[in-house]
């Protein structure tokens, strides 16, 4: 499979973890900020699954990205900026998903504020990675 095909694979796979982690952050933050909502449990349950699926979605995204760039971890210019957001985001997302898998879906307990804050940081990082990925495809 050539680089062009891997680039298409990267484009096809990368939007799942971006969307799922952003949704996860929004759902858990809503449930945390508005504990009186009737759908609080549903928000956290959806947050749980979007976190887990988002972390699983990073696997094809990272593998296709690395193969496409022939194993470059940082690179130059926009690729470098993309990777400076990607790698911390990956570590945070996988770490958060593993923590969440142990902690459960928060239907009977409130999520710790540290979890919500870290999820927010991961969401910002993955948005930055997506922005610089877009710059590479469209802006250069």
């Amino acid at each position, binding site marked *: 499979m050539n*680089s*062009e095909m891997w680039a298409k694979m990267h484009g096809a796979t990368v939007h799942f973890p971006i969307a799922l982690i952003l949704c996860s952050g929004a759902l858990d933050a809503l449930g945390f900020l508005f*504990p*009186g909502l009737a759908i*609080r449990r549903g928000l956290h349950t959806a947050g749980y699954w979007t976190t887990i699926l988002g972390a699983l979605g*990073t696997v094809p995204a*990272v*593998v296709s990205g*690395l*193969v496409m760039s*022939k*194993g*470059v*971890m940082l*690179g*130059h210019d926009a690729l470098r900026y993309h990777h400076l957001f990607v*790698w911390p985001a*990956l*570590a*945070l*997302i*996988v*770490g*958060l*998903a*593993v*923590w969440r898998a*142990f*902690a*459960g879906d*928060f239907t*009977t*307990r*409130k*999520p*710790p*504020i*540290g*979890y919500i804050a870290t999820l927010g940081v991961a969401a910002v990082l993955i948005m930055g990675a997506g922005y610089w990925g877009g710059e590479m495809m469209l802006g250069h």
Partner: protein
Amino acid sequence: MNSVDALIPEPATGGRIAVAAFAGLLALASSYALSLGLRREESKVSHQQPTPEAWFETPTPSSPALIAQGRALFLSSCAHCHGADATGDEGPDLHDVGVSDRYISNIITHGIKGEMPSFRKKLGSDEILRLTAYVRSLD
């Protein structure tokens, strides 16, 4: 006190945080290992393959001065991808490339689509000759 007020935060125990941190670092380490493997494979293919014309072509004249000038050009134009010692970084290792001088200068001049930029506008033919002599000296 209603059921919402009774909600207590999930305890963030040190053990869970340690496992999560380990998982995050493991993900990074796995990515790095994959990156190293891909770069190693990449150095074995493409322009690292010997070309038959190298067996018949007369080598470009070279001298220590030409090689030193080529080295200076290499450091300013090529080292950020091929590494300061030309053993490869983002770009491949340039030692023992096994290709002809004409092939080397063609790659420098025209680049490789999707892999390496063309230096036709940045470097003159004399400079490409010096760079070629330097790359040849790495054999």
